[in-house]
């Protein structure tokens, strides 16, 4: 479990720090899941007809599958690009 390479090589963490790192990773995975549910719902679900059916139809289903795949793809591409251009300059506020 090493989302975004977190935690991978870091040596000699205290027990408390290791559990905290695992918690941070869990929070990030949960956050990504919530964002996916939200974003792909907006992109894929047809509500123009006032929810004419409770099922996810075939078109919507395919769209959801690809939406998730492309979101992961985007996540990876953004991470690689940030490393390339030097993400160290990132947050600006510190």
């Amino acid at each position, binding site marked *: *479990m*090493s*989302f975004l*390479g977190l*935690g991978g090589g870091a040596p000699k963490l205290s*027990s408390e720090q*290791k*559990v905290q790192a*695992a*918690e941070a990773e*869990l*929070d990030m*995975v*949960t956050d*990504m*899941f*919530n964002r*996916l*549910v*939200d974003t*792909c*719902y907006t992109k*894929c*679900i047809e*509500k123009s007809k*006032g*929810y*004419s*059916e*409770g*099922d*996810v139809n075939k078109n*919507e*289903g395919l769209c*959801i*599958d690809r939406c*998730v*795949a492309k979101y*992961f793809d985007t996540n*990876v591409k953004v991470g690689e690009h940030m490393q390339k251009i030097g993400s160290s300059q990132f947050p600006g506020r510190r």
Partner: protein
Amino acid sequence: MDQLNGREQQEFQKLVEQKQMKDFMRLYSDLVQRCFTDCVSDFTTKTLTSREEGCVLKCTEKFLKHSERVGARFQEQNELLMKNMR
């Protein structure tokens, strides 16, 4: 997670359980807000009209099925990602 030892795993597991209820609550609240926003826009009545209620119920089902499907794909993609990292 292989870098956590037994006691740490246990502590982490406790954290996970505490968070699961919160996650469920959040998804539930998101669902209510979204279905309300999408289905209710007549404020001349104090209770849901039958048309609004029908819309809310279908929206609920659709949202649940949607989030299930996202969950299944999410897990697959996550496993793929982990495999590629090793």
